């Protein structure tokens, strides 16, 4: 790499940092204490099977194919970065992408349920973003539903549609479905006194899901770019994973 190329990368990085980091800091998972105890418990019960199987799958993956460990860290880091980027959106609010589509495509939804939950735990403990009582609900939407949506799209379209389109749809819809579920979780816990759960769902959906639309598109594109880079840079790992045939 030539000297000017290195400088170019540094400058582009600096500009990106300014663009993304200059936003005021806010959060978008369900806030600590904002689900009544019964609902908080309900979502923990719902997510625990995914954690149990996820840990088993993760252990098996690491012992069968230790060479993918670095790629595993990479997928977690991708979610980590994307969850930290709060982007302005068309509703005048900010929200952040989830980054779970990439890991789900690479390692399947079970493994991703662990990686996504680790990120959520970090944010709940250190940044007061999301919460411990709402961790079950937030993990269910971001680390379970999102990855499963991504994986199902990937599985049904791979080979039938252009590669980039498959990756784009998987990542974008994983992102969007996460916030549709978040809206549903809030609507179930806080039904509108007049319109019931339906009216509440529309209200929360407008806040979360509509804000998320352009972000989901951005996340889809970013995931396409990252997959593109992985295909030239991590061919060996991708082949190992493809041969293993990632199970559900």
């Amino acid at each position: 790499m030539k000297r000017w190329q290195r400088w170019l990368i540094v400058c582009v990085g600096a500009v990106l940092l300014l663009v993304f980091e200059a936003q005021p800091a806010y959060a978008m998972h369900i806030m600590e204490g904002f689900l009544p105890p019964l609902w908080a418990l309900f979502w923990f019960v719902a997510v625990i099977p995914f954690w149990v199987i996820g840990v088993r799958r993760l252990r098996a993956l690491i012992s069968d194919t230790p060479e993918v460990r670095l790629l595993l860290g990479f997928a977690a880091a991708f979610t980590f970065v994307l969850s930290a980027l709060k982007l302005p959106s068309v509703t005048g609010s900010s929200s952040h992408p989830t980054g779970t589509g990439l890991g789900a495509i690479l390692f399947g939804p079970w493994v991703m349920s662990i990686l996504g939950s680790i990120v959520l735990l970090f944010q709940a403990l250190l940044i007061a973003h999301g919460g411990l009582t709402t961790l079950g609900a937030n993990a269910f939407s971001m680390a379970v539903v999102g990855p499963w949506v991504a994986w199902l799209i990937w599985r049904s379209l791979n080979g039938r549609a252009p590669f980039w389109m498959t990756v784009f749809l998987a990542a974008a819809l994983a992102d969007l479905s996460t916030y549709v579920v978040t809206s549903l979780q809030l609507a179930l816990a806080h039904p509108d006194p007049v319109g019931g759960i339906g009216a509440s769902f529309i209200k929360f959906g407008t806040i979360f899901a509509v804000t998320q639309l352009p972000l989901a598109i951005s996340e889809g594109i970013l995931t396409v770019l990252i997959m593109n880079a992985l295909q030239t840079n991590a061919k060996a790992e991708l082949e190992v994973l493809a041969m293993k045939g990632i199970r559900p």
Partner: protein
Amino acid sequence: MNAQPLSWPVVIILGLIVIALTITPLLVIGGTEFGGADVAAEEAVTAINPDYEPWATPLFEPPGSETESLLFALQAGLGAGVIGYFFGWQHGRRQRRDR
């Protein structure tokens, strides 16, 4: 998982689309601070259910937006570091093999 890599002009155009998607709301919509969607949701909960009292508070809360942005920057920085390490490692491995 086999597909032709995207050509570099396509990569640049895709990058520009992401930047445009991010900047457009800032230019088009005025009179907002682009607060978090969760704060808006919090207000919606209070509007729907005025008696609702949050029954838990975060164990640790950054004292202000400066510290919060420090933690978020740290989060993004750590993740970006791992991603950079990954690509650097792969690049080095490829070069060793090609030699």
